[in-house]
């Protein structure tokens, strides 16, 4: 598609004064849509590519104004008198762009997850925030998966880069190379996720093979001129074995990279699974203690990788 005809994309949040995802104070833009289904995903409302209803059951008083308002009749009352709840036919919701249900809701139980924003609108928002970043600072595209909306991503990165704004992307990597490559000239920084080195294990964790991901990382080593830091979410018992740590370190070094930011996964996103009608699979998982995180960091360093735990990446 010709880039000039594409004027925007779908996002689900913009946050100013973010301090953990790149140098300085930054504005984070959360793009909708992701090819992976990671068990621990803390932004499940970013997975589907289009806007969707967010339903907070605890606030619902079952007046059913939404049900009456929905033109497509996608909402059903289920569960009987004892445990009433609303169910949404989310495939149909994906084709809605009026959100009559949200407008009709009087309790705040229904919200709209995601919206369309044009490039000029997004850019003027960035311009506003820019005056508050101070030294360093810039934008970080995250999500969702930014490269899943490649023209939009390239468009906003180019506008920012040409205006001397520092640009960063956080990517899962499971994206066709030709959707990544056009953005590279306009990028200062990439956070690139490595979730598991073993293909089968990767599938179990993310519902997807890691082949494209590893291939893209190797290509970036050749094509990308900015700074790339790998990110590895540590899922206890799933990807923190010494074998995987060694394999990860070997891979990073074999590509010619050396930086890795390890992040303990957390349960903070779990309420949002309910909002989007999804199921959180890691409910009972016990999280890594700080000591374990530091032990893994030491192990990576032993293996020759510059490893930063949590929010300690030097920017």
């Amino acid at each position: 598609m010709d880039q000039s005809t594409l004027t925007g994309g779908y996002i689900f949040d913009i946050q100013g004064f973010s301090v953990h995802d790149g140098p300085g104070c930054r504005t984070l833009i959360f793009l909708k849509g992701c090819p992976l289904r990671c068990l621990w995903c803390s932004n499940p409302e970013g997975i589907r590519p289009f806007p969707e209803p967010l339903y907070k059951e605890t606030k619902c008083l079952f007046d059913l104004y939404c049900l009456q308002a929905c033109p497509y009749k996608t909402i059903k009352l289920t569960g009987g008198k004892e445990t009433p709840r609303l169910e949404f036919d989310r495939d149909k919701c994906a084709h809605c762009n009026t959100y009559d249900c949200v407008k009709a809701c009087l309790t705040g139980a229904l919200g709209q997850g995601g919206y369309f924003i044009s490039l000029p609108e997004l850019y003027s928002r960035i311009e506003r925030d820019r005056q508050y970043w101070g030294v360093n600072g810039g934008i970080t595209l995250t999500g969702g998966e930014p490269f899943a909306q490649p023209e939009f991503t390239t468009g906003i990165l180019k506008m920012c880069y040409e205006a001397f704004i520092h640009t960063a992307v956080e990517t899962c990597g499971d994206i066709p190379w030709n959707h990544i490559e056009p953005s590279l000239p306009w990028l200062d920084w990439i956070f690139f996720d490595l979730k598991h080195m073993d293909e089968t294990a990767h599938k179990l964790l993310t519902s997807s093979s890691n082949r494209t991901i590893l291939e893209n990382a190797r290509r970036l080593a050749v094509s990308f001129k900015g700074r790339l830091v790998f990110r590895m979410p540590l899922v206890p018992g799933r990807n923190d074995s010494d074998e995987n740590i060694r394999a990860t370190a070997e891979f990073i070094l074999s590509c010619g990279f050396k930086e890795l930011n390890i992040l303990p996964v957390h349960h903070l996103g779990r309420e949002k699974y309910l909002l989007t009608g999804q199921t959180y699979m890691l409910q009972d998982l016990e999280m890594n203690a700080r000591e374990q995180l530091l032990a893994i960091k030491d192990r990576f360093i032993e293996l020759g990788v510059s490893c930063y735990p949590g929010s300690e990446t030097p920017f």
Partner: protein
Amino acid sequence: MENSAESINYYGHKPSETVEDREKKLTPSPRANKARELYFGAKSSTSMEFPYWYTRRWDELDGEIPVIRRAESLKAGFEHLTPVIYPGELLAMGKASFLRGSYPMPWLSEAFFMASEDKLYQEALESGKLTADTFTTLGKGGGNVTNSSGKVISIAGKFGVRVEEMPVMLEVAKKWKNRSVDDIGHKYEQMVPAYKEKEAIMRSVICMFDSGYTLPQGREVINYYYPLQYGIDGIIRICEESMNEVAGFPEMDRLYFYKAVITMLQGIKAWIRNYAEEARLLASLEKEEKQKAEYTEMAERLDHISSDPPRNFHDALQMIWTFHVAVLNEDAISGLSPGRLGQVLYPFWKRDIDGGLIDRGKTIELLECMRIKFTEIDCFASMGVVGGVLSGNTFNNLCIGGLKKDGTQAANELEMLILETGISCETPQPTLSLLYDEKLPEEFLMKGIECTKAGAGYPAWVSNTVAMEFLLNNYAHEGMQTEEARAWSIGGCLETSPGSWMPLNLDGEIHWIPGGSAPATSVGVHFISLPKILETVIFDGIDMRSGERIFPSHGYKLESYDELWQGFKDYFSRAVHVLTLTNNIQHDAWRKISPSLVNSMLKPDCLEKGRDLGQMGARYNTTFNVESCGNTTLINSLASLKKNVYDEKNFDLETYRKAILENFGYHTAQETGSYSLVDQKPNEHHSEYRKIHRRSLDAPKFGNDDPYVDALFKQWEEWFCEMTHNYRSLYDQPLYACQISVSTHGPMGAVTLASPDGRLSGTTFSDGSVSAYPGTDRQGPYALFNSATCWNHSQSQNSQLNMKIHPSVVKGREGSRKFLELIRAYMRKGGFHVQFNIVDSRMLKQAQSDPDKFRSLLVRVAGFTQYWVELGKQIQDEVIARTEYEEL
């Protein structure tokens, strides 16, 4: 990625699941720690020594020239204060003979501390003077004596008085009936044609307080120059010489003024020497060598400063403290700010440290002792004033940074140590304000960040540029120029106050030190409840809580937004008009009956002119203001009405009236026992009002960079700041706008019905003046900054932005740097003030349920820091709610 769209409670970062403590902790020196423990155990106590002797002398001098009578009475009071010195103290003296001592000043007002069944009290209630008291809550913990027990009687909801002193108190109070500033002012204020309207305004709590007899002084910066330069004897000599020049010449009031100052100073000399005597006595009884030596040294120091100027830093600090207390003892005062103390003391300190007479460790110990001394200050006033406005705080604001006389940056090494002791010895007083200027060195600013991060709520960050612009706008006609504008400081919680440069001559070298040069900068029309005014506009002049008519019908059908806005402007102007006139009369009574002498003597140019502050003796006198409360609640309400009634016509105004009267189908805040919107419970009628309530909550809210509502905010600001200039003060100067809520948004919210923005009846208003209503700023800090700066802040004496930041966001070195960037960006954008609570709100909730465990926890309220346990429930709820609203 750790951030999420839906459940952010805090800017930039979702909190972890464990309660986060504050990051930086230092401990005070053992000496200061011991003093602080003593303070924690002390109760607010009041004694009758000073008022008894004052009143006795006053009656003896019936017929004497008023200013002389006043001076003699003050002298008698000072002379008879029993000196009390605590072991380990490096700075002696206090207001009264208790650690947290204070006393009533019945010559200002006597009715409020009478027993509630007394006739005097009932009369005061009737005239609307005490309505605010009945809607104020005080913190139940800490040093507040909220209930009588054993041999201690609780007065004004906060102070304990010994049961045997009670008869004296009542006797003395009754003596002032029909003679106090309150009573005389009241007699004459009734001559203002619209007086009846004023009473109704006070009863409805549209205005919270009268000005002339409650806290007639304060919200200003003290000036220590004369005692530091000349010593007490030197000032007496100046007065004697001046008397020789004016005796028998026209403007004879000057003669009496000089004579009065001498008399008053003799009282202060005696008071200091009584302390010296006590120190000598303690030294003679003390066995322990070190303590004995300290007492001896203290006695010698006090003797010295009772006559002569200070010889060193320690002398200078004692001198400053003595005169600070002396001013506080002449009037009911809150917000007497030491101002730029680090710059005033620097010449003394520099000479000592270069000469090896003091080291940094000793300096820190002294500064810590000073913090505790300032914290011991209590202000005796009515419950509504102490609780409702001040939250028990006395606002001794110490400012750091800013510019020197020559325009270079003014921060110095002593100020670095002041910041350091603000961390090591966390106490509410003196609170710190950093006068931010682009010229200040990075090292100093980072030290400020470190202190802000420590979590006690100070320093507040205040723009030097905006303040100077305000001063030049408002004082140019009195001769202020750029150079002098640089001498400004914050007086009180956040009142921009004019200053002057004074030539301190030390060893033949001139050091230009800054100090206050205007009287109280926030007197006049106190705290007008903007949401309550809007309520009366909607109900055509009637206070629906009581059913009383406040204003005559405005005559508008309210068929357009412009009519609504015009109705608001009409009523607001009526209130300002009558309150300006009645308060001018009260202040006139004050300056005639209870003229300021101690404070006048200190302020340039009273000594030169031979006039006290009430006779415009100060260099700058344009200091009366109009104060607002609930700005953002007003604007959100206007936006909701504009959208729902006028633009989209979702509901008519009659439907809104009904919803407001029925509180949108919720139980009242008094019923639920919480003043936070989040905790309110629907009643059985809620379903009828759910739609209008939801649409009201969904209407545009200030703080989100939304032009729809920000335009209304700008329109309000530009009209308000300008209209105040149309009214004249007692000193025939134009008024200006002052926008700080202090704590009034609690009690004023308590008497206000539901508002069209969806706020429920009795709940607290928005705080500060450019803060978002708790939880409605959903777009993060940058959007909030944009909204806050949609108007020019230098049109007003101040603007106030309160933010709560979770400790994890600004953690570590990197967090510190980014925190500074955030503040700097707001200052560059034209923001006047921003302050932070760096605290996990879950910790505050724990503290609410288990206050004893959190005796030393400090939080920032609105321009001041206070012990959590000494805050009223209304304000506690509001601080918790500031950025959380998830469950609404």
